[in-house]
């Protein structure tokens, strides 16, 4: 056991700052963007944002390789944080393109509705958001975790309020603001409970305490840990847009721009998954070593947590998909769909929690029937992270396409009075006949939708494959029965795949509108070339993952493995090796 005193007084050194150099670069770029408005002109904002992301990318490339785990002053760099950082920077670059619409346009306010173009403030705020999210990924300390989360939330409110100046926009940003406050306070309560157990805000120290067999600590943990994990779960549910904190998503998405909707449907989900992964990591002991005991309290609360996650996952995906079936507004529909995908993401979290709840020394699944000593491990976090990446690519692509298309003309015949003004693309019907008016965008949207629906061999299929495989392997050799853990997870897998079929119904409705209907209304495609570029970049990435899913999967796999290595026990090498890895 590591002396607690040594852990609680970690020195903050220069090293900690060098570990977060990419995040610092983002913040510096944000400051440049804020000031740049005065000196470089309003047009410079999103260019600075992209340059800042590029700089952070370069600095991240100079960071230690992802196998290593380095902790210093509340910062923890490991395979997991590296994956999150690359994900955030990659998605950030795509989102910056979508957000800017046209990279060089200045903000143009056309009265109520979406403001076109961008300002330097928007770009700077966006960079701060990315920095916050990346910090969440490297946080090894509750305080840093919370600061990172707030650095995600506050810029989000500003972006929501800036982009659309009408009643819908105000409703959206207020709704998001209040719910976000609730979520943040729930996380703070959870953090306080954890501090109460661990006597420290450092995640490693808390994890070490959880393994303690001391009756006093165990007694306290028995009370506080379920409360902490439960509240963190609900708080994360807001960021994931999962039941019971899901209902804001359709309203907020409807009341904002496609760029903001793209942001909301991806980046907060990353934050939610990171929080759950880090807190789970507290209690998940690496599987096969007798040295790493799951403390009895951790065991009990993980048992609670996986049940909670299974129920929330099943309900969330079903609620999201069924709600989406009736939507006509495109952003509302995708809002409901993003709820459903939060449910899919939670499948992996549930598996990870169940794996953590397995007794130490006993690999996932009952191995008594195995005569080969081979252990099946597809970490739940691995599938969740992999799925998150495939989902984010397709979602940003769709919103990028919608942002790029911008407006379309109402039906009008010459000589029947003045031509009516352009209308923003808002409903599914507005995409009618897109295949003939803008075939590239229609093809891209169709590919993204089919990927979200999980049609092979698109990325969404590989994601769902790993989610279903990880759910099916829990307690693999136990009999399937209603009251067993195996029964729960087989049921969850069935709900998962049936939901994929339900979801196909509304995704196909959009494809059907684009390809099977005809229209006399022309599409303006005035949303800006940068959004179009984002759409094409997503299409290329989707094609790349289709052909070669391995790279992304292995990166997610390393990240997922790093999560359960949060414990300060040197067992990383003792994990079962799987042929082919």
């Amino acid at each position, binding site marked *: 056991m590591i002396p607690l005193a040594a852990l609680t007084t970690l020195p903050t050194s220069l090293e900690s700052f060098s570990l977060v150099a990419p995040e610092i670069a983002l913040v510096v770029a944000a400051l440049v963007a804020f000031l740049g408005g005065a000196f470089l002109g309003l047009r410079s904002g999103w260019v600075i944002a992209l340059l800042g992301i590029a700089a952070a990318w370069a600095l991240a490339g100079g960071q230690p390789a992802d196998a290593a785990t380095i902790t210093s002053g509340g910062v923890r760099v490991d395979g997991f944080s590296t994956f999150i950082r690359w994900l955030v920077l990659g998605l950030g670059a795509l989102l910056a393109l979508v957000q800017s619409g046209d990279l060089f346009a200045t903000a143009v306010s056309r009265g109520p509705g979406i403001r076109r173009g961008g300002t330097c403030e928007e770009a700077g705020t966006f960079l701060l958001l990315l920095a916050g999210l990346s910090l969440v990924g490297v946080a090894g300390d509750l305080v840093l975790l919370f600061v990172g989360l707030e650095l995600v939330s506050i810029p989000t409110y500003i972006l929501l309020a800036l982009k659309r100046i009408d009643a819908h926009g105000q409703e959206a940003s207020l709704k998001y603001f209040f719910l976000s406050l609730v979520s943040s306070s729930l996380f703070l309560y959870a953090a306080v409970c954890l501090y109460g157990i661990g006597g420290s805000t450092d995640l490693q120290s808390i994890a070490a305490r959880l393994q303690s067999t001391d009756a006093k600590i165990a007694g306290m943990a028995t009370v506080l840990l379920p409360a902490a994990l439960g509240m963190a779960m609900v708080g994360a549910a807001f960021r994931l847009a999962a039941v019971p904190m899901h209902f804001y998503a359709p309203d907020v998405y409807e009341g904002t721009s496609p760029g903001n909707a793209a942001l909301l449907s991806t980046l907060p989900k990353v934050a939610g998954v990171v929080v759950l992964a880090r807190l789970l990591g507290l209690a998940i002991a690496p599987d096969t070593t007798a040295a790493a005991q799951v403390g009895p309290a951790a065991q009990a609360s993980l048992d609670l947590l996986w049940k909670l996650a299974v129920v929330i996952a099943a309900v969330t995906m079903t609620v999201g998909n069924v709600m989406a079936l009736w939507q006509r507004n495109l952003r509302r529909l995708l809002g409901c769909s993003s709820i459903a995908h939060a449910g899919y993401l939670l499948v992996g979290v549930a598996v990870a929690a169940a794996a953590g709840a397995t007794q130490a020394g006993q690999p996932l*699944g009952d191995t008594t*029937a*195995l*005569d*080969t*000593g*081979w252990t*099946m*491990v*597809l970490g739940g976090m*691995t599938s969740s992270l992999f799925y998150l990446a495939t989902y984010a690519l397709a979602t940003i692509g769709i919103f990028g396409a919608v942002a790029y298309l911008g407006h379309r003309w109402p039906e009008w015949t010459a000589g029947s009075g003045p031509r009516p003004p352009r209308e923003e693309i808002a409903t599914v019907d507005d995409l009618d006949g897109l295949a003939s008016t803008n075939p590239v965008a229609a093809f891209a949207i169709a590919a993204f939708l*089919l990927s979200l629906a999980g*049609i*092979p*061999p698109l990325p969404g*299929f*590989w994601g769902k*494959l*790993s989610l*279903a*495989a990880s759910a*099916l*392997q829990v307690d*693999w*050799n136990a*009999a*399937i*029965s209603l009251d067993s853990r195996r029964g729960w997870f087989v049921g969850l*897998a*069935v709900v998962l*795949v*049936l939901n*994929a*079929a339900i979801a*196909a*119904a509304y995704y*196909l*409705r959009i494809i*059907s509108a684009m*390809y*099977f*209907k005809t229209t006399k209304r022309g599409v303006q495609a005035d949303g800006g070339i940068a959004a179009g570029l984002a759409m094409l970049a997503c299409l290329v990435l989707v094609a790349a993952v289709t052909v070669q*899913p*391995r790279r992304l*999967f*292995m990166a997610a*796999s390393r990240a997922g493995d790093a999560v359960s290595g949060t414990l300060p026990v040197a067992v990383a090498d003792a994990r079962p090796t*799987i*042929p*082919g*890895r």
Partner: protein
Amino acid sequence: MNALSPSTHLLLVIAAPLIGAIVAWLFRSWGLAAVRQSAANTAIVTLVLAGWLVVRFLSDPAAMAGEPYGLVEFPWLVGGIFDVKLSLGLDGLSIWMFALSALLSITAVFVSWDAIRDRPAGFYVLLLVLEAAMLGVFAARDVILFYVFFEFTLVPLFFLIGIWGHDERRKAAVKFFIYTLAGSVLTFLGLLAIILWNASHTGTVTFDIAALTAAMKAHPMPMDAGGGWLQLIVFLALLAGFAVKVPIVPLHTWLPLAHVEAPTGGSVDLAGVLLKIGIYGFLRFSLPMLPEASALAAPWLFGLGVVGIIYGALVALVQTDLKRLIAYSSVSHMGYIVMGLFALTPVATEGANLQLINHGLSSAGLFALVGMIYERFHTRNIASLGGIASRAPWLTVFFMLFTFSSIGLPGLNGFVGEFMILAGSFQRAWSGVAPSFSFAYLLMAVTAVVGVVLGAWYMLWAVERAFFGPSREPPRSGHDGHDGHGHADRCDLKWHELVALAPLAVFVLWIGLTPATFLRPAAPAIRAATQASADAFAARMRDATPTAQPIARTAQLP
């Protein structure tokens, strides 16, 4: 001649339609003629390559003995728990369906020659992509690759129905897609369960179908309460997808709608090949990997097959739309195949496998002909048609040929398959089941024979009404806005229609006259695939047979 290795050859056959699709897309601004010509060239090249591969397969002694032929393997998602490979190869189970897919693509392209004038590039690209997916599904030797092709066939057909279909096309396309997807996602879970079972019992992860089949034989899934009836659960999961695809009554409701609304080219592929993937799935996965569960389900599926035969025939009898009639006849004929497969005797299963090809040929031909009739008369309503024979004698000849093939006229291919299925079923009913099952089986087999009579009735009745009798004009009103263009004139087959139909007709006769040529290559593979299930069924029947009662002493006279 042998410079081309079988592996490269196989890869080439599957890649050819994809390359052709790209070429057709590049020609899109050159207009209809260029696009359809390039699609036709592609289909012909693919067929020649596939035909040549089949000839090589047939002349390879190892392949004829049941060995896989032309193995190709590239890693796809290998790492962690996954070992997904792009693994292809042919064996006796798949060789004829593979060839049929290439053959029917010719028909699909040439029947669309004049019919498709709207956005032709998109149409032919999708048709060729569909061809590649169909070829792939039969050549796949990796579970996930099979599933990828299995699902991916939905996408091009969805667009084909939705864009180039008839009035209800949007509803039909979505219903077809969702219905099939809902079934096949459960199949997906079943396949994953098989992979995990193998991994936990052999210690290695493999997604290779042959390796999994062997492993499932060595380590069968539990089929009792103690093991949670795992084998039965997995069987039902696989059944969900395959039964929708076949379709087995009562899961057939998507089929008539999809067929009626689909463009002719789509109907040809749908009826000819896609329905067969369900049966192929039973042969490839359910029967060899889950024998005890298959044996348990066999009487039920045998019965559902018979229900399908009668139900499909009765519904076909009352149809007024010729295309819908043929769609229901497909339901009926697929019933025979299901029945033959789950009779689990060698004769019946081989007959079922042959009948896959037979039905592929005859139903594809009939759908193609209905499309041609629709092009000429702008109606498929049997009551509005009449006397086609006097105006289009060759069209009538082909329609009669495929009708006779469909109803099983001796000398044509349909007779061979149907006869083998019925003979095998009676063999099962008389000598292969426990006494308590015997009557039910006999009843079902006799009912299936009644279905043959019904089949002849609805087909010949439809032919009589539509083709013979006085020449009749469809009413002018409701005749999609074209003024009279002399329907009464001769309007016989055009050259491209002849090209679409002639290859099918050749095989209808060829299989009918020398069925052994087509039965022999498949026989070892069919035998191997069904042996385990047949044995398990025999064991079940032995258990159900009461042992002979000793003569009671009390019954003897004092």
